[in-house]
């Protein structure tokens, strides 16, 4: 399928999970296609990077579910900051371990998972949906501990970018970290995998250890071949982050009309192939 096919299966108001981490291995080709679409009012769940910033700047987001949003080498995402500081997007903030447990609970079809993370912090004050649960079992000294009950974080759709995949949805991560990617897929009703290259299944174990095939067809509804699709974020070992591009992107946020100029140059009127050709020039 294509990026446009993925976007055609999304709808206004959906909760969309985006894989990767910060400015690393983000499914940016689909993010760009969402920016070009008429979609709106999305709830975005992400270990956030420029995916969150661009979708906020493009007016696609009603709410961001996040523990952090960062460009790594640029600590704060400028378009996300602007959206938050202007009140343009709502937020559900969490500890990053709570995001892990919320996705895991959805994947395992349980209503919540318990954790200490969040106790005593202002998360319980600012998130009115967040509840605690008292352990039915006595702990040390006979005390029944009260823990945070992280609710299942159900996603209407998840989009993840990996290095290699086969046509059936076997996905291979050749970089050092799978982040939460398989959990995003397992927590979602519709699951989309983009990849640098679609290869015959036999090639997967030829290019990496079996443990690198982190994504199975059980987790995937559609595969998109998107060479360079994580740009400008990194997709090691295929390519590093495009730091110069990212610096220009971040700098545009400080200019009057900066987003309009950025989207005119890099989003509007370009399909993904044209984008990739333009980046190479």
């Amino acid at each position, binding site marked *: 399928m294509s990026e446009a096919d993925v976007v055609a299966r999304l709808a206004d108001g959906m909760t969309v999970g985006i894989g990767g*981490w910060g400015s690393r291995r983000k499914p940016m080709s689909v993010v760009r296609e969402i920016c070009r679409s008429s979609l709106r009012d999305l709830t975005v769940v992400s270990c956030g990077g420029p995916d969150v910033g661009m979708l906020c700047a493009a007016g696609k987001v009603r709410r961001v579910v996040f523990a952090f949003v960062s460009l790594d080498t640029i600590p704060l995402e400028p378009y996300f900051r602007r959206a938050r500081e202007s*009140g343009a997007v709502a937020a559900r903030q969490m*500890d990053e371990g709570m995001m892990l447990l919320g996705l895991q609970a959805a994947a395992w079809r349980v209503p919540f998972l318990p954790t200490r993370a969040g*106790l005593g912090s202002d998360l319980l004050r600012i998130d009115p949906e967040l509840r605690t649960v008292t352990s039915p079992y006595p702990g040390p000294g006979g005390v029944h501990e*009260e823990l945070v009950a992280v609710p299942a974080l159900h996603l209407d759709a998840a989009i993840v970018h990996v290095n290699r995949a086969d046509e059936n949805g076997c996905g291979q991560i050749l970089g050092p*970290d799978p982040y939460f990617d398989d959990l995003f897929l397992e927590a979602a009703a519709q699951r989309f995998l983009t990849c640098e290259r679609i290869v015959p299944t036999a090639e997967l174990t030829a290019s990496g250890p079996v443990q690198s095939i982190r994504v199975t067809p059980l987790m995937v509804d559609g595969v998109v071949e998107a060479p360079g699709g994580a740009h400008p974020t990194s997709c090691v070992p295929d390519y590093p982050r495009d730091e110069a591009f990212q610096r220009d992107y971040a700098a545009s946020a400080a200019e009057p009309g900066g987003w309009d100029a950025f989207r005119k140059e890099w989003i509007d009127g370009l399909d993904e192939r044209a984008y990739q050709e333009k980046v190479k020039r």
Partner: protein
Amino acid sequence: MTDVARADVCAVAIADCFRGDGEILANPIGTLPTLGGRLARELHEPRLVMTDGEACLIGDTPPLGEAPAVIAGWNPYRRMFDVVWGGRRHVMMGAAQIDRYGNQNIASIGADPDRPMRQLLGFRGAPGNTINNPTSYWIPRHSTRVFVEKVDVVCGIGYDRAAQVGAAARFHELRRVVTNLAVLDFETPDRRMRLRSVHPGVTVEEVQAATGFELAIDGEVPQTRLPTPEELAVLDRLDPEGLRHREVPS
């Protein structure tokens, strides 16, 4: 006055935070914390387990910015939660704001969390870190903007919040706060922040003036110890470009 570089004093003070930790994951975040942690591992805590800042555990102790020559293990993002929630970790985080009980804010500035005056990083892992494993802080610019009477948003929890939580907070422990001016801790009866030592060339009055709440001070405040020649040699090897002096100028 002294001709020792302030950044070297800070690096050694950070290294001393990990003294006695043994075989745990030392997880210092940022330039000087990473340098201090590696100094500790190199000289007095050889069993400290450390990462390359991404998904690998280091087998040697590389200079800042260099990949390890030896990789000792795989510790991807998701694995870190196993370590944190199991407690075998000592993290050193930063803080946009910190108060007298060690409550820390890295999420946002402003009273309304739904419309912050300044959106910062987010809660990141601060709530889970502080309630599960020992935590220290590194503050490169000690000022009343950082050391505040009340933080706008509690991310990492302090001793007053931990006491309210009760039994479930039994693994909460704040060790030290190292800054460009001083070393602080919470070794007081009521767990208020105490001035543990002032760096060479800094007065107690200067530290108090740069702090937005009253520090606990018992008697004569000692001076933070000077680096040894051996420590200075290791610092030069681990930070040949002198990145530490950019973070804390002398």
